[in-house]
């Protein structure tokens, strides 16, 4: 490897990136857009579920229960209906996701100390959302039941009553159970996978399409010099881009950052090496900008989204699919990013992931070098 040739390639690439505003647009505008789109668009929390109530009784007790729903951040009484049919209609029309029907003997049954059934109708077109809504509603009603029981026993002279068993849950690492703390770091991973690969996927193909490659390969330059020289500017851009995305995550989405910056730089550098080399390999192998950009999107976005553990937990996938996730570099980076963001310092749990990324970089790097040939 000759330093002069390496410098010549790197300098040329920097000038070309600088003169092509589109590449800078990809570097800064696209991540910001993707972060905004996915950071806001994907939320696993259900808040302000539109609720329709049909209170057959209209007693003090039934209104108490509904007030609790009203006061909760999870529900919003969107409609009070006077008959069953209009409640059904509201759910059919998608105006409400939850329908609550309170029976006309609600207060009476409570007085007697009996059990009373409140009917809940959940729109389950999205089963995940339906489960969440059902869980929240169940918890609300259980809380109300406990209050009623407490009053009942107190009225009979018991001073305090404690439930026999209760769970004292403490949620670690994401104390507020805010799903954006979990999603936004994942978005950073997807954005970096897509942008990183896309950036380099054009660099070799462009030279083939414009005819500049023929002149380039007639010189004594080696494939290693071309590869390293071309990747250096994109590597620096990629690191700046990662910092940019993470700044958005911390400053805008308020995701806590508990780990070390140095660790994040090491992890990101390794992942960038993997995705940049992947893009370069695709570019050298296809020799066409269109094919390369399409390949790079399919090969990075889908695995990073579906197989990294971002959208679906890996341990709940079928075994065969789980095996495929091991071939997805984003899986390791996602795990690193989440640990560094939410868990904090400590190198121990990071080592296997760092090792996996280094292995991917080595293998893909070899393939990229091999696919760059100095013949037409």
């Amino acid at each position: 490897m000759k330093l002069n040739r390496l410098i010549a390639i790197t300098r040329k690439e920097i000038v070309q990136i600088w003169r092509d505003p589109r590449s800078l647009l990809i570097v800064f505008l696209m991540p910001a857009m993707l972060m905004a789109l996915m950071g806001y668009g994907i939320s696993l929390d259900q808040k302000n579920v539109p609720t329709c109530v049909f209170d057959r009784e209209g007693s003090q007790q039934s209104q108490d229960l509904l007030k609790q729903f009203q006061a909760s951040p999870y529900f919003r009484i969107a409609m009070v209906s006077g008959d069953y049919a209009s409640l059904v209609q509201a759910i059919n029309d998608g105006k409400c996701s939850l329908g609550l029907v309170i029976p006309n003997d609600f207060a009476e049954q409570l007085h007697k100390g009996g059990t009373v059934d409140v009917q809940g109708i959940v729109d389950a077109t999205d089963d995940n959302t339906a489960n969440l809504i059902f869980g929240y509603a169940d918890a609300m009603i259980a809380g109300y039941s406990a209050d009623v029981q407490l009053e009942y026993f107190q009225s009979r002279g018991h001073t305090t009553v404690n439930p026999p068993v209760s769970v004292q849950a403490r949620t670690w690492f994401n104390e507020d159970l805010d799903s954006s703390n979990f999603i936004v770091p994942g978005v950073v991973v997807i954005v970096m996978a897509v942008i990183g690969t896309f950036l380099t996927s054009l660099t070799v193909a462009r030279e083939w399409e414009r005819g500049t490659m023929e002149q380039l390969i007639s010189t004594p330059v080696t494939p290693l010099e071309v590869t390293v020289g071309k990747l250096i500017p994109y590597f620096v851009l990629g690191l700046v881009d990662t910092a940019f995305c993470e700044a958005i995550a911390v400053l805008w989405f308020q995701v806590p950052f508990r780990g070390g910056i140095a660790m994040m730089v090491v992890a990101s550098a390794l992942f960038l090496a993997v995705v940049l080399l992947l893009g370069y390999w695709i570019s050298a192998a296809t020799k066409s900008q269109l094919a390369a950009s399409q390949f790079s999107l399919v090969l990075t976005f889908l695995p990073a989204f579906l197989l990294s553990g971002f959208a679906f937990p890996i341990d709940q996938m079928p075994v065969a699919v789980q095996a495929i996730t091991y071939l997805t570099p984003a899986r390791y980076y996602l795990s690193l990013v989440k640990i560094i963001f939410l868990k904090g310092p400590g190198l121990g749990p990071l080592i296997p992931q760092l090792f996996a990324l280094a292995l991917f970089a080595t293998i893909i790097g070899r393939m990229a070098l091999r696919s760059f040939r100095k013949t037409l």
Partner: protein
Amino acid sequence: MENSVLVRDLVKRFGSFTAVDRVSFETQPGEVFGFLGPNGSGKSTTIRILCGLLHPTSGHAEVAGLDVTRSAELIRRRIGYMSQKFSLYNDLTVIENLRFYGGLYDVVGRQLEDRIEWALTMAGLVGRENSLTATLSGGWKQRLALGCAVLHRPPIIFLDEPTSGVDPVSRRRFWELIQELSADGVTVFVTTHYMDEAEYCNRLALIYRGRLVALGTPTELKRGSVNGELLMIEASPLGRALEVVKTVEGVRDAAVFGNALHLVVADGDAAMKAVRAAMDSDGIQVRRLDRIRPSLEDAFVALTSGDREKNGAVAA
């Protein structure tokens, strides 16, 4: 030899198509060696093999005394190459392109500055160092490409149709530069399909359908190729005239050249009489009938006539 090219029985096939068919030749040090032939005759393929950009199917080729299949990287340091299509970076400035190729050829420091100055002067680009290459006209681009290809003072340069698409004045200037390089001892291997340009070469290889049909100085080719004397006839209608002259005794070959016919005949005086008589009897109007000296084009037509007739092609 440091500045020679030697080719023996070179063959290159792409599938069932034979682009280069058992071509053999060698260049002499410091000469301008022309590769003349129509588009698609295998000129670029040969030049690309010699520069290590394509692997030959069979045969042997040496550049600067090195085998092209085994020592391609060593050869690349000793040659300059200008591809057929302009292939410098349009989004780089003149000086950036020169510095880039200087870096690739490992020319540095004072030496690089000297060579860049030389290249700028040679190309007439002094004062336009910071212009984007895309904004240059064809002639400037070609001269800049030549400058980039010879920054490292290679003993051999390969120029693939360097003047295609360039205006006549720039073409002439470019050939002067080639002559200067040759005078400095550089072997110049140049392909062209312009017959007039071929006259500038010390020696020429005529290549047609992948085969080398003749090799020699332009004078040798012109003299040796035409079997007999050459007549030129301007007549109308030309098509009918061509049919008629082919039936005249003593006419060995006839082909259209622009708005005239060129005839190869055994005996000039006898043939002129016979041709005029045949034209008159057929009612064809003859504006001019003369003896001429063969041009390279005549030589080319004569040398490829066997092939063309076999393939049913019309000489044009």
